[in-house]
């Protein structure tokens, strides 16, 4: 674990990107940050600009209009950066797999570090995934 990763895992800044989702995942992400689940006590904050983000939470099956945007946003992220595919659509395009307006699955567009399945994933699952991601980043030694 390098110096940057060490600092990063102490307080993760999350950017939320909806690439054609049905809003359910987006609601649950916001729900994680509000008083009931309150992820902010662990230093996890939703940021408004991709340039401040450590983790990209991507919801929805990427459609043709959003694919170039996803690539652009990933390029703009300061590295090291991590990507979470959120929900069934983010992980595998879900039932929109065969639509005329759906493009490639997310993990073929940008590298994905963690998947959260579920339609939508419960807030508990999101918290669990972030904990696992932090574990994964810390386990990487010497990189």
């Amino acid at each position, binding site marked *: 674990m390098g110096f940057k990763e060490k600092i990063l895992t102490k307080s993760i800044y999350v950017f*939320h*990107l*909806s*690439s*054609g*989702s*049905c*809003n*359910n*995942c*987006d*609601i*649950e*992400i*916001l*729900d994680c940050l*509000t*008083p*009931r689940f309150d992820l902010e006590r662990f230093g996890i904050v*939703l*940021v*408004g*600009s*991709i340039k401040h983000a450590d983790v990209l939470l991507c919801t*929805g*099956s990427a*459609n043709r*209009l*959003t694919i170039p*945007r996803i690539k652009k*946003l990933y390029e703009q992220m300061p590295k090291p950066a991590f990507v979470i595919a959120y929900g069934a659509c983010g992980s595998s395009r*879900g*039932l*929109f797999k*065969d*639509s*005329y*307006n*759906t493009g490639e699955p997310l993990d073929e567009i940008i590298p994905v570090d963690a998947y959260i399945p579920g*339609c*939508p994933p*419960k807030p508990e699952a999101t918290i669990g995934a972030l904990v696992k991601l932090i574990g994964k980043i810390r386990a990487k030694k010497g990189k």
Partner: protein
Amino acid sequence: MKAKPVIPIGPYHPLQEEPEFWKLVVDGETVVDVDVRIGYNHRGIEKISESKSFDQSIFIVERICGICSSSHPIACVQAIEDLAGIEVPERALYIRTITQELERIHSHMLWLGLAGHFLGYNTVFMWGWKYREPICDIMEMVTGNRQNYAMHKVGGVRRDIEKEHVSYILTRLDEFLKQLDILKGAVLDDPVLHTRLEGIGILTKEAAIEYSALGPTARASGYDIDVRRDHPYGVYDKVKWNVITQEKGDVFAKAVVRILEMYESARIIRQCLDRLPDGPIDSKPKEIPPGEGIGVAEAPRGEVFHYVKSDGTNSPVRHKIRAPTYMNFPTFRETVIGETVSDATIILAAIDPCYCCTERMIVVDDSNKELFRAQELVRLSQEKTARIRERFRMKQ
């Protein structure tokens, strides 16, 4: 003529969770023209539905929008029932009404929170979302999931409300109403919010009719339409409730309509639970004959419209879906033009836009110089609230 500066907002910005792109053409601080590009959420659901069976199509329409995941299935099953002439058992109608109203409360609460967030009033955001949780818990208890309920099917509902659920729902609902009272007081009596929201983004009744606006957007302008009363479905014609209307048509009126509607929803749920009849919850229809059917339902944002055409096979020939935001959204031409930039965000948010329903939204035109970024726009909006707050402090 000198080109007017253009403010691009989006497609990804911290205001809304969903991608959309607004182009505000400004003259000084005044918005003189608006355009919108949607499509970032277009997933081609109408085409997918044509390749699925009638039973499966209900799961698809549920995933049109996470907030309306009870309204879309209700409208869809009603269209299929209208097509095939299927009778629905009474208990199922009661259960449909209950889920529909629970969804309305959760959606209005969600909007109220987000509206507070846009104004830089994050207390409302946090409170609103906290107080929404009992409703999510009820949903989880009754349907098995916090969102995407999978509750409705052609001819009835999938899950029953058990006896022990009833008392749980009532206690949690009471808990919610107590908190709503506090929030209502905090929002409706706040002088800052009054000054900030009153008289901006006015949609006149004539414009509402011209654009066929729907739901709270129309009702706040005095256009008295409500699908639940006008095209009764479920058991809305058997319970007592009122349609909430306001006359002014500004953003504040829209907030008032939504807050008061939550009380009406709670009233409907109480009456339904009280009268819940015994009996089957599913009429188990076997075949869908050729024909066409229309189903409408009142989603939290307005009327949801489904048209289904069948040729007697297992899947629909055509499934047309119209979400309420589709009709409400073009009204931004009436409401935003002439307002200041710092008010634009809350006006655009006031119709409670739901892009995934509308399934659509522009590409940032790089040739136009960016004057404001989205965060700055939010900052402008929040600074205005702070200025007003300061003014009030000085008066007192």
